[in-house]
């Protein structure tokens, strides 16, 4: 009896199992654009979250006043049809497009823009966009003149002008004003919230969410944009975003034709296969030149805590770690051509500053990287007292301890780890011993903020090409002033100069003058070398061959930024 019961139980379980297996097959999509995301977005509203997935989906669901064209990297009209600047840039009058509607059919009025801007500043929303929309510590003031015209007042002349507004999604006041007051705006735009509660002006709307698997978007019938030949955009009726956690898996899907667009550019290792597939006509490749963001090496330049009064300060054997000569020596000691070969398999470009040639408008091309010279590196190190006193091939500092430091990299990041190994090898040739330690991203950030590290090889979080998006890096009081964040007053004269230059460029309304000033800031960085940049990879984007009107750019999201224009054959 027991045996029969157990047999029946097993049979039942097997049948249930097979049924589960069968029901899990996904139906193949027809005439939909399939893209991938590395993780589920934290929020579908750009006002609330800044992880990469949120950025991608927000751009698909929302429309701002002005848009950054990711290829030309310049500003172009979106919901705002035209604008005029008055009062030397202190006031801007914008005209909204006529007939522009939200996804629920209601008209977009200037009042909605005023509301959206106010929501960005609301402390209950705690939007990360606040800093980019704050000038001289004061917010922008918007005033609706009529249903289609509004006036923006800046507290001070602002160089970037309307640029920061490219991140602001326009939301209907009628729906969301009460949610902002309640503090429930985040819940309404969470991934599991009902789709009819999410109203935006973007090309797509949320149709369905398969938890952990995919996000299904459908065309917004009220989207304003029309193609050059008159077709109503977006061209595709459906867009599916699959959650694919690793780039290997994304490449696999791209290869099999199960994905049209992947999250980021191709890695060097994937290039040969991608080129072969492009030759067969299954993929289309786009070469975009040097990447926008560079990995940087920097040292902890915080001065050591002052000694107790009355005691004689001990001889600081580690002072050489904070010297400019060390950084110059490192820049001389690394053969950049060999670095590119080892780290990027030859598909890379030498750069001399953190604003790379990929940033068309702001890159200072006059600055040349330092020549590869072990002799010069050695001489610079000798100058700070770091020389090989006992002939063992490793230099010693003035207290006769071996000249070594710990380099921190993000764990799991293949390219940065490889670069750290190449640096370790290169610096060993000059007699410096480097030890590599790896930490996860948050731990690394914490150490950078607390100053409990010696050297880090990492990059800044992605941002817009305009330097106004990087003020936390440029200013000595900034959180991301990597080598010495959060200073109350600039610790060195050159940092004070940098502060002065970058603060001034914010208020210059003349573009050419701004470029000159930012160029001066880059020259200053090159002279003092607080961050050392070696090379950046060449960016290659791959999409499936059946897509038309693809215009990839270096800014993220590289392909989906103009998802409305993309069509399928």
């Amino acid at each position, binding site marked *: 009896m*027991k045996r029969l019961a*157990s047999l029946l139980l097993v049979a039942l*379980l*097997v049948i249930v*199992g097979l049924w*589960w*297996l069968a029901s*899990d*097959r*996904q139906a193949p999509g027809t005439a939909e654009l399939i893209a991938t995301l590395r*993780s*589920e977005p*934290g*929020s579908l509203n750009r006002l*609330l*979250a*800044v*992880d990469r997935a949120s950025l991608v989906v927000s751009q698909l669901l929302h429309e701002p006043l002005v848009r950054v064209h990711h290829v030309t990297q310049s500003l172009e009209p979106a919901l705002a049809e035209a604008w005029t600047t008055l009062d030397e840039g202190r006031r801007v009058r914008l005209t909204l497009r006529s007939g522009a509607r939200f996804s629920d059919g209601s008209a977009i009025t200037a009042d909605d823009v005023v509301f959206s801007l106010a929501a960005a500043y609301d*402390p*209950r929303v*705690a939007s*990360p966009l*606040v*800093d980019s929309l704050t000038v001289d510590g004061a917010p922008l003031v918007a005033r609706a003149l009529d249903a289609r015209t509004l006036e923006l007042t800046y507290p001070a002349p602002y160089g970037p002008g309307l640029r920061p507004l490219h991140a602001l999604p326009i939301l209907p006041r009628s729906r969301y004003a009460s949610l902002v007051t309640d503090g429930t705006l*985040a*819940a309404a*735009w*969470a*991934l*599991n919230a009902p789709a009819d509660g999410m109203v935006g002006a973007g090309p797509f709307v949320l149709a369905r969410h398969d*938890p*952990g*698997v995919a996000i299904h978007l459908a065309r917004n019938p009220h989207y304003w944009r029309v193609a050059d030949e008159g077709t109503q955009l977006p061209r595709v009726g459906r867009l599916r975003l699959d*959650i*694919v*956690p*690793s780039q*290997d*898996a994304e490449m*696999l899907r791209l*290869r*099999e034709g199960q994905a049209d667009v992947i999250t980021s550019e191709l890695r060097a290792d994937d290039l040969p296969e991608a080129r072969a597939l492009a030759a067969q006509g299954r993929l289309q490749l786009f070469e975009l030149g040097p990447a926008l963001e560079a990995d940087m090496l920097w040292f902890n330049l915080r001065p050591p805590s002052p000694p107790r009064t009355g005691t004689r300060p001990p001889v600081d054997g580690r002072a050489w770690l904070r010297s400019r000569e060390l950084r110059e020596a490192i820049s001389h000691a690394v053969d950049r051509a060999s670095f590119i070969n080892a780290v990027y398999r030859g598909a890379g470009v030498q750069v001399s500053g953190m604003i790379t040639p990929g940033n068309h408008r702001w890159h200072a091309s006059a600055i040349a990287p330092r020549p590869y010279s072990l002799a010069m590196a050695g001489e610079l190190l000798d100058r700070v007292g770091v020389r090989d006193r006992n002939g063992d091939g490793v230099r010693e500092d003035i207290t006769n301890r071996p000249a070594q430091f710990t380099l921190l990299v993000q764990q799991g990041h293949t390219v940065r780890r490889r670069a750290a190994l190449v640096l370790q090898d290169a610096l060993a040739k000059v007699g410096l011993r480097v030890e590599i330690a790896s930490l*996860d*991203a*948050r*731990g690394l*950030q*914490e*150490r950078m903020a*607390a100053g409990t590290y010696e050297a880090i090889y990492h990059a*800044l*979080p992605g*941002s817009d090409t305009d330097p106004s998006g*990087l003020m*936390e*890096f440029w200013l000595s009081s*900034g*959180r*991301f002033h990597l080598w010495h964040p*959060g200073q109350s007053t600039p610790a060195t004269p050159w940092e004070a100069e940098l502060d002065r230059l970058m603060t001034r460029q914010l208020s210059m309304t003349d573009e050419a003058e701004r470029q000159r000033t930012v160029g001066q800031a880059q020259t200053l960085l090159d002279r003092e070398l607080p961050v050392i940049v070696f090379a950046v990879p060449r960016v290659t984007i791959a999409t499936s061959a059946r897509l038309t009107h693809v215009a990839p750019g270096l800014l993220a999201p590289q392909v989906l930024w103009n998802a409305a224009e993309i069509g399928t054959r």
Partner: protein
Amino acid sequence: MRRFLAGRLAFALALVLVAYVGVYLLTGLAPGDAAGDHMGSEATLALQRARLGLDRPLLERLASRLWQLPTLDLGTSARFGQPVLALVAQRAASTVQAGAAALLLALALGIPAGVLAARSSSSVVRHGIATLSVLLLSLPALVMALLLLVLTSGTGLPSLVLMVIALALPAAALLERLQARALHGVLRDPCLTAARARGVPAAQVTWHHAWPLSVPAVLGLAGVIAGQLLSGALAIELVAVRSGLGLLTFDALQARDVELAAACAAAVALIVSVVSLSADALQLWLDPRVSIANDDAAADGYPAR
């Protein structure tokens, strides 16, 4: 039996609570927190922390969370913006689904193979199965998952099948070894000799008499195996592209999302406890000789006394 079950259930709940509190504290004490992933200023960061509730001290947050636990309010995930309970439940269901299928496959493959390996008259079959098992056990799970991925990349197999096979094969090999060893252990039992003397055919002796005697021994470790299968494996989830508990826990920890990480750890502890409890209960039901006091004596092939 009832007292045994009640005791083990109470322990399971205690384990879940300990896992929750432990991981909550660990993640909260780790450097870094859930806010601050962007190029904002200190003031913006402070506002964000306030919105996420991160400005209160860790112990206070834990206390208020524990107070709300009976209502199953596990808070909102700072990383994903969704309610924690729904998120974990959905991922756990997906993981258990794949794990259960893998367990069934492993049992269906491993148990018969183990019996064959012990009792087959053909030495080719016996050695062949043993070699295959040892080989399968020797490959690191990561390598096997990758091999499977490359082998099946041409076919249109869904990721679930890949994950199930990658999980099931090593477990099947382990079960096969356990079963073979357990069957050897009961071979000298007098009731088997008596059955053979009565003229019962060899196959019937094996399946009807010997195998049921060996089941308790297998069940002991099978519970541990089942628990591991059902609680998710990060590496395999990455390779098979399946959003399960392993990946969710990893994401939560990377992002220092305290509420989510603690809930994931509690879910894993719950699954493992329930599975091992079921295995032990099943053992008791099948073999009344196992005294309740010696509840773990039947592990590892040693029949209880």
